[in-house]
């Protein structure tokens, strides 16, 4: 398995990379390459040109700016996972990223690259939806912001135009007083999730769900926000029947067809169990969910 022939271009700035994309319609950006290179080795992808953004200065920064963790296009999964500054303001990122493949892959794979690759079972795109984040992309006409809810169109398909490059991803920080949790189920350590759920939950002083955000991946052609399950929780006090109802409602989001790994019914079952777990954990009541 060797990659097909392509022209290699080492970009020295974002503008330089975007110009190459505009001039060469068959060109693709390469950053960490942990998804693109295997796809090319298998000849599932054969771009005419690879525009390497790996050496563009300034793209490997993580910063926390006006309420969001800003992740540059060359930031590796491992850096985001290990950053104590990031963990202090948005712990869901570490909770999710430790499930991405294995350490040697996380050493090179980039978080923004994973978002652009848009595998429907991948963790990072789902966390972008869960946190109500966005990406900043630059194209020939300048820069624009694409909100997570508008970004993911289908398996490996995003709203980023072929002549645009994602420059950064923005993950809003955890709201004051909220808790978060992430869990996934996969057949082997490091595999893509058969189903994964993330929750951001805030309980008011009467013990009711004040804010609930839920998202899942591995269950449909894109990561999904589970709005109807959120609605089933908001304003309610935590108890087993409320959790059961939310988990049942979430089943409607599972549209993945039966495949060699799992049936649709099995994925619904997983989603239901994972959802109850993460909501209880995020609410800080793991030990004692009143029945």
């Amino acid at each position: 398995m060797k990659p097909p022939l392509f022209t290699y271009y080492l970009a020295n700035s974002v503008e330089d990379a975007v110009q190459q994309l505009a001039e060469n319609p068959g060109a693709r950006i390469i950053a960490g390459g942990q998804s693109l290179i295997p796809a090319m080795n298998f000849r599932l992808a054969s771009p005419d040109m690879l525009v390497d953004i790996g050496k563009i200065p300034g793209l490997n920064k993580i910063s926390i700016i006006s309420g969001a963790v800003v992740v540059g296009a060359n930031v590796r999964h491992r850096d985001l996972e290990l950053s104590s500054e990031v963990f202090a303001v948005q712990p869901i990122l570490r909770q999710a990223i430790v499930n991405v493949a294995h350490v040697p892959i996380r050493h090179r794979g980039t978080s923004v690259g994973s978002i652009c690759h848009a595998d429907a079972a991948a963790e990072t795109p789902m966390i972008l939806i869960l946190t109500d984040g966005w990406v900043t992309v630059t194209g020939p006409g300048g820069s624009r912001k694409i909100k997570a809810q508008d970004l993911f169109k289908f398996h490996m398909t995003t709203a980023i135009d072929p002549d645009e490059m994602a420059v950064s991803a923005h993950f809003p920080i955890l709201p004051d007083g909220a808790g978060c949790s992430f869990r996934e189920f996969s057949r082997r350590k490091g595999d893509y999730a058969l189903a994964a759920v993330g929750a951001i939950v805030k309980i008011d002083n009467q013990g009711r769900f004040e804010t609930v955000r839920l998202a899942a991946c591995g269950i449909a052609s894109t990561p999904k926000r589970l709005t109807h399950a959120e609605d089933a929780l908001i304003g309610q006090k935590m108890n087993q029947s409320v959790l059961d109802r939310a988990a049942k409602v979430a089943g409607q989001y599972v549209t993945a067809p039966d495949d060699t790994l799992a049936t649709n019914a099995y994925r619904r079952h997983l989603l239901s169990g994972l959802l109850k777990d993460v909501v209880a954990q995020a609410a800080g009541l793991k030990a004692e969910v009143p029945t």
Partner: protein
Amino acid sequence: MSYRPDISIDIPTESADPTRKINLKLNGQEITRVVSTRVLLSDFIRHNVGLTGTHVGCEHGVCGACTIIINERSSRSCLMLAVQADGAEIQTIESECGSDGTLSVLQQAFMDCHGLQCGFCTPGMIMNIRSHFNSGEKLDLSDEGIREMISGNLCRCTGYANILLAVRQAAKQLGKG
């Protein structure tokens, strides 16, 4: 027999592909080579440089046999183009033993504990563990912790039990964890 193969000789490969000149530091030695832009780093190391200790298994990032250390971090050499390694500092399994062939503490532990049988996965295994040892992070030396550490390296012979013993022995001798 030399334990540190001479890597100063450029092994020419016949190809009409577009090429690019790269400089990198491989096992402490600066080298400059002209490579086909589509050659994988794993193939570059094996074929252009002649260091065959880095093994190539699945070529899509699953088996971990090709794991090497790039800029102090373990990475899959099959998931990277050689041209992406321009300017990088790389260690392969050939850097692990002394120049006289003395095994490193980690290699000796694999030998003592029978942490290998066919040996195909061992170079990738050792490079991955070496990167964890050198990272400065606190290591979890429980069975579960070591299994997590080596979860990206597949071994079809040992059943992993003796690899866990080897990693723990080496970690203790080196004061890690």
